[in-house]
């Protein structure tokens, strides 16, 4: 297979990954890494480098559309960025020394968690449980609805959310994904944020976290331009088309299909990691 054909195939694969990632809200990274390692037998460290860059691309691309709606909470995002960026540096450093088999198994486990999170019903419940930390950090805020009303919300369990975000950062740096699923757990389940706010805020954080770990990958030489080029362009194209069709698509059946695919990929990654064929 020549580089031309290889690039073309990767471009198409990345386009599909970006499309599915944006339709299901899971991002392209969870598909990119299994695709590169399982199908094309690319070394997992090259795959992580390329995936991280595509994560930044989707995050910045989506953020440009989100900020108009004015519902992301920049203070929560920035405060929690301290946790995710510290975690990202640590995770990327561990990835340098961790055996690739261990990374593959861990990746499979995170894929399983992502699949179950994507299937879970997210309920919009505004609860009022003002905490001292949240008030001191001025995290409580409000967001506008379509009919012009302002909905106020408070933020609960800030320290717990902060710790969970640190874990999300480590996973992102170690595995080269946005770890959006873990960020959603931190903000929805622990900090009790309304999901409109947590979705957009998490998207902002994913880009900053991925940029931080990319610094380590870049200086280690894990970012190969020939590999990253079709991945970034494909994922960006797919995510763009995805955001256009999002309104029309049957997202529920799509989510179930995507969860099945991810579960299958997860089992493959774990199996290959344990048997050492990756």
């Amino acid at each position, binding site marked *: 297979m020549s580089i031309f054909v290889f690039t073309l195939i990767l471009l198409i694969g990345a386009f599909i990954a970006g499309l599915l990632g944006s339709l299901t809200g899971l991002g392209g990274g969870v598909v990119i890494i299994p695709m590169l390692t399982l199908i094309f037998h690319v070394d997992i460290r090259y795959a992580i480098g390329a995936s991280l860059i595509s994560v930044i691309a989707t995050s910045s691309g989506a953020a440009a559309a989100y900020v108009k709606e004015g519902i992301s909470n920049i203070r929560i995002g920035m405060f929690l960025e301290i946790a995710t960026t510290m975690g990202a540096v640590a995770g990327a450093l561990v990835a340098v020394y961790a055996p690739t088999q261990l990374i593959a198994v861990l990746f499979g486990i995170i894929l399983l968690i992502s699949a179950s999170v994507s299937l879970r019903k997210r309920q919009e419940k505004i609860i009022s449980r003002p905490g001292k930390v949240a008030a001191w950090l001025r995290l409580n805020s409000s967001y506008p609805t379509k009919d012009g009303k302002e909905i106020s919300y408070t933020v609960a369990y800030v320290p717990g959310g902060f710790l969970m975000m640190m874990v999300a950062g480590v996973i992102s740096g170690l595995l080269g994904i946005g770890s959006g699923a873990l960020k959603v757990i931190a903000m929805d389940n622990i900090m009790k944020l309304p999901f409109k706010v947590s979705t957009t805020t998490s998207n902002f954080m994913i880009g900053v976290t991925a940029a931080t770990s990319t610094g380590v990958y870049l*200086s280690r030489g894990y970012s190969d331009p020939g590999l990253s080029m079709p991945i970034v362009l494909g994922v960006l194209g797919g995510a763009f088309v995805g955001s256009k069709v999002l309104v029309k698509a049957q997202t529920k059946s799509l989510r179930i299909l995507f969860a099945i695919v991810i579960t299958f990929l997860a089992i493959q990654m774990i199996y290959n990691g344990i048997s050492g064929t990756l």
Partner: protein
Amino acid sequence: MSEKRKIKDQDIESIMGSLLRVGVLVSAGIVLIGGVLYIIQHGSAHPHYKTFRGEPSDLKGIKQIVTGVTEFHSRAVIQLGLLILIATPVARVLFSVFGFLLEEDYLYVIITLIVLAIIAFSLFSGIAG
């Protein structure tokens, strides 16, 4: 007071939105140009990603990448586009520092500076080298 803060927050956010869009488009354009060059220069060769070797040192640092671009090396052009892409979320954080300064929210100026310091540490310290 909160009324006033809201308006400023949203102004800053909308500038950031355009900043991000431009950043992503410019970087995608450069990566595309580099990609076309890459296919022309190396299209018939064979890929070698099965074994990990790490990148040659001429693609790791910002200076080396810029030198490569002036010599029309396709891989350096792609790498430049990727660097711009990496810079977009960092620029958003940097921009927030000024935003919080304008709002006189010094607690968040400090928080944002801490985040910037961690990112800078990762990008420039060469801890992984």
